[in-house]
């Protein structure tokens, strides 16, 4: 099974390209089309990328688990994709990152979970605001889609459900 992107509960093709980048941010040249770069590269060459964005080319940023989302708070509106990396699925920092992006910084475009992502994480990832999931090769993306229906109800408010159950149960 090859790597697959799930979006809106469907396996879809991925129009985004990533660019291999070394330590030398200064020399990076981005190809045309939608490109995903690291948040560090975004911050290092922000002025250049803003020019690129102004020309209508799409850009996305990828956030490592420890990346403090506040650093890109002012730039959110420029991104057409934010990818949150899960090198190990047991590192749950990205769940908070996602909620902050959606609920605090009002990010509305694609929020993608990448890395060690599988069926058993999708329900909660979806709850905190992810709408795209890059399922690595070897895992069954089609079967994973079933996870969105794992629970019929939830107790807490999150990105997917703005009211906690107790405000709906008594209604």
């Amino acid at each position, binding site marked *: 099974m090859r790597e697959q992107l799930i979006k809106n509960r469907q396996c879809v093709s991925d129009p985004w390209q990533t660019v291999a980048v070394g330590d030398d941010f200064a020399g990076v040249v981005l190809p045309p089309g939608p490109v995903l770069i690291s948040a560090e590269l975004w911050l290092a060459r922000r002025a250049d990328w803003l020019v690129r964005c102004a020309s209508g080319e799409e850009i996305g940023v990828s956030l490592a688990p420890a990346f403090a989302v506040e650093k890109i708070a002012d730039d959110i509106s420029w991104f057409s994709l934010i990818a949150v990396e899960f090198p190990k699925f*047991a590192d*749950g920092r990205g769940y908070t990152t996602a909620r902050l992006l959606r609920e605090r910084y009002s990010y509305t475009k694609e929020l993608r979970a990448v890395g060690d992502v599988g069926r058993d994480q999708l329900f909660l990832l979806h709850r905190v605001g992810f709408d795209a999931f890059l399922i690595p090769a070897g895992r069954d993306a089609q079967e994973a889609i079933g996870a969105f229906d794992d629970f*019929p*109800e*939830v107790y807490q*408010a999150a990105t997917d459900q703005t009211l906690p159950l107790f405000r709906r149960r008594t209604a």
Partner: protein
Amino acid sequence: MYRYDKIDHAIVQARVTQFRDQTRRHLAGTLSEDEFRPLRLQNGLYIQRHGPMLRIAIPYGMLSSIQLRTLGDITRRYDRGYGHFTTRQNLQLNWVKLPEVPDLLAELAAVEMHAIQTSGNCIRNVTSDKFAGIAADEIADPRPWGELVRQWSTFHPEFAYLPRKFKIAISGATEDRAAILVHDIGLQLVKDAAGEIGFTVYAGGGLGRTPLLGQRLKEFLPWQHLLTYCEAIVRVYNRYGRRDNMYKARIKILVKATGAAEFGRQVDEEWAHIKDGPGTLTAGEVDRVASQFSAPDYLDFSSAPVTNEAQASDKAFTRWVERNVRDHKIPGYAAVTLSLKQPGLAPGDASADQMEIAATLADEYSFGELRVSHEQNLILADVAKKELYALWQKAKAAGLASPTIGLLHDMIVCPGGDFCSLANAKSLPIAEAIQERFSDLDYLHDIGEMELNISGCMNSCGHHHLGAIGILGVDKGGEEWYQVTIGGAQGNNASIGQVIGRSFAAQDVPDAIERLIDAYIALRHADEKFVDTVRRLGLQPFRDAAYNAVLQERAYA
């Protein structure tokens, strides 16, 4: 007690279905052990020495007789006819078989029970005061708040993969019987000058390798903000808690490294964004939950004679009353502790028969409800005093009436190396050897209140740091040794015990404990508890007493 509505039922049943599928995929080989491990842990399933161990949640320690009877039945059909009640008010089964666990969970779900988040790096079962709702010193009943926290933390989408486990305890009384200062979050119910309910909030307490007491973050948090404030604490922890070293990953390390004041400031900053948002509790929801913990229909037994003359002169009975029966806020009623500390049996263990008998006693004498105590006993909280003698006779026949609550025999003990794969040393044989050494009941009563806690490793499930005497199993060069601490205490004046010296060999532990007790008896003032004698005199006299030449020679250098 809280009863599930159809939504609560649907959520727990969905979990059973989800776990059934995860188990199926794991057994079919499509979900690797590495992938399955965190999933099964979040369902309370460890792989232990004898195979899977299942930890069943007993939220804030409340059990109905129907639930306890079901647990007994389950231990008989899925296990070996007994279970182990833990210091966090859970029940552990040691011999379950993985393919059968989904069926077991389905049976639990039918009686509104589960094993959700009883392990793993998530928010664990919330614990509380075993005398909730009946204690005279209660400010407010902690159980509704426990249930609200249970629901908020159950499958919390943001906090399933924290740096490490996360434990919350709630006390509603002036005396802290829930050990809130050694929890990741400790909540103390308080009232302000206007009589409004709120919480004093502590964070960063815990035992383990680095025992620390919780730091006060909020003197008075109005009740409406309980969940948003907890969410802010856990969010700061999820972002900044250490993940590079599992021994430094608990929130206590973050609070200590950051400093309580600065940590509190970070929490406040986070909280400012979500305070007064939809997570703010409503009076309607609090009332809905609280109404399910309303007092049972007590009758007026205040003038009924408690015993007749013959019963009152029954020394075994009066001794049991003295130790195992506690006052109740309603005249004519009492709380009875059914001891799970029968000499010769593992502390906290109950057989299927005992569970069923305890359930029947609850139906007959205590409105069909029980509590599990943090000291690993069962409690019938609402017994008419005039029934005490009859209850005692039945409890005694079932091996549930050891008259030793609060005494040396009433130890908190983890399962240790006999069962647990984390343990460095066995704890159960040590407990048994000490119980045997102090087998004289008169002497036990003369010693008086004594908290002796035993853990088989640094994870401190037996809360050894909090024992007046604590015993910790340690591994030295592949051998089992036992380190002794004294001066620990739980409750409002909690303190962490201090090591008295070199570690003892297993065979020498009873001698060492006896020498410590002898020293205490020689040194104590009238009515002075062990921990107070240690606080008054310091470690040295006990250190000197514990080791004679032989013990010193044999101790691990």
